[in-house]
């Protein structure tokens, strides 16, 4: 069963969000990395780039396919996790920790409330696999 930490927020596109003040850290979920298979390349934005909620901010290439990753919240990128360029496997081995992708300064922190809770996300992935 995929790991779904309690303290995070989730999107239906399988990204997670960790909120710290008005900065959100974004990555892809354990369920997502498991479905993608071995990640071989991660394409990330540069600092200061702006994204709207649900806009694609980069892509993840696995041995199966290239998939876009979407920002669950609006704002400007504070930091992109550039070392994923050398070690893309961190997305597989530690999706909620060292596999984080971007930190974004939220322009509308209220958007977090419309994301899924851990329990809701778990139900959502269950429905998707059935």
């Amino acid at each position, binding site marked *: 069963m995929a790991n779904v930490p309690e303290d995070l927020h989730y999107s239906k596109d399988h990204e997670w969000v960790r909120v710290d003040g008005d900065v959100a850290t974004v990555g892809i979920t354990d369920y997502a990395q498991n*479905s993608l*298979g*071995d990640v*071989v*390349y991660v394409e990330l934005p540069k600092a200061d780039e702006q994204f709207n909620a649900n806009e694609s901010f980069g892509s993840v*290439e696995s*041995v*199966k*396919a*290239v*998939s876009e990753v979407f920002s669950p919240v609006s704002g400007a990128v504070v930091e992109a996790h550039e070392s994923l360029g050398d070690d*893309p*496997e961190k997305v597989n081995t530690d999706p909620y920790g060292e596999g984080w992708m971007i930190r974004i300064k939220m322009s509308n922190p209220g958007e977090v409330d419309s994301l899924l809770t851990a329990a809701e996300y778990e139900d959502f992935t269950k429905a998707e696999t059935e």
Partner: protein
Amino acid sequence: MKSNITKVTSHISHNEALIFERSQTGRIGYRLPPLDVDEFPIDDLIPKEFQCDNDLEGLPEVSEVDVIRHFTRMSTWNYSIDLGMYPLGSCTMKYNSRLNEKVARIPGFANLHPLASENDAQGALQVIYELQEHLAEITGLPGISLQPAAGAHGEMTGVMIIRAFIDARDGQAASAQRRTMLIPDSAHGTNPASAHLSGFSVKTIRSTPEGLTDLAHLRELCVGGHVAGLMLTNPNTLGLFEKNIQEICRIVHDAGGLVYMDGANMNALVGVARPGDMGVDVIHLNLHKTFSTPHGGGGPGCGPCCCTKELEPFLPVPRIVRSRSVSEGAPSEAAAKSDTYKLDFNYPQSIGRVKAFFGNYGMMLRALAYIQTHGNDGLREATEAAVLNARYIAQGLAGDYEKPFDADPMHEVVFTDKRQTRKGVHTLDIAKRLIDYGFHPMTIYFPLIVSGAMLIEPTESVGHQELDQFIEAMSSIAREAIEDPELVLNAPHSTRIGRLDEAAAARKPVLRWKPKQAATTAQT
């Protein structure tokens, strides 16, 4: 005397070294005879700035026979359409007949210089013209250019034509507001790439649980007047015919957009249904799929772009035009006609040239030979056989593999690894194991919207026996996945090299062309 010769089943070639590793100092391909003219220093003949450095340093020193044997041996490791079924979904790996090859090698065509004048190239131009006529008839779309060199190129040409048309229709300012291209979530990855390169932003249309374009979502996305067009594959990449195609075209047209059809799956339609009749405005074809010209190994391909009369002025130039004069009193009707062909550049609204000269000409000869040897009935029969074969596999494997959509497939069928996953066996493992049974694997993990997809396209080139063998092989793998999953997980077992670590190869690629030792020395 009794012979001691025993049969061997494998050859030294399995230990083939790199051509660089076969290099021996001083070994050469051929020797020139002694010079029988006066020798001049090279600097007297060619100015220094035009001379290149000795960049042959490090190239292998081998003889002709070394080269021939090396590459011939390696070619025997390959799997090709001439060896057997190649069920790579979405690729239409049909047999390429020898007759087509013979036609492409007719010296008058093969040796024609690309800069030959129109007068000296009348026959070659006639071939292009006639092929265009056939393809226009097959698609129901009268405007056509054979320039694009491959499918994605034809796609991009089509999208550029849409953009040029809207610019002309609405004016630059209004057209700039229409920059959205709609693409279903089941589409080939090249579709969004072509749209993006042509200055459009992409919005994705959901598929319904039945695997078809979601009309409600399409209508929703069409609101607001920003839609320039829709890029649709029909049958779609799930192998399903978009039965609402006319309604889909109507919705997009009512919203002021145009419909581009990706012709990748035309093998399900040729001789049976025409995109032009469905309401499609522009389409590309893949001669290297549907019309039996070789592909794989990177081409060359040919991706003709066909469009409506309305879009014709925007096609790439030059266009091939025919002028026909009929003389009185000739002995027969045929003899009375005198046709001349020329390259016409005079289309001011054209998007311009998209390929040097006139595309990949050899492909056009092969496709014309394919069309003419089949004739109308033959083309229809090929289509029917392609669909029948896919449906035969759909039925034959329904007991062993999960089929995510109920509808009967067209020319290709998608299955998933859902049942096998319970035993830890996934699509990749099934594909690898299929190699042990002597088949090229199917397309895997595409379309992206189907988890663990296996997309199987047998084409019409496979007979009943081989279809049964394929079904048997797949059924056998399904049994193995239950009874002996390790066997499948570690496949292939019959190849030179076993399962490769694709992830490590992509993450930490080691790229070198020199022998290992030399490469290491060069780095330090």
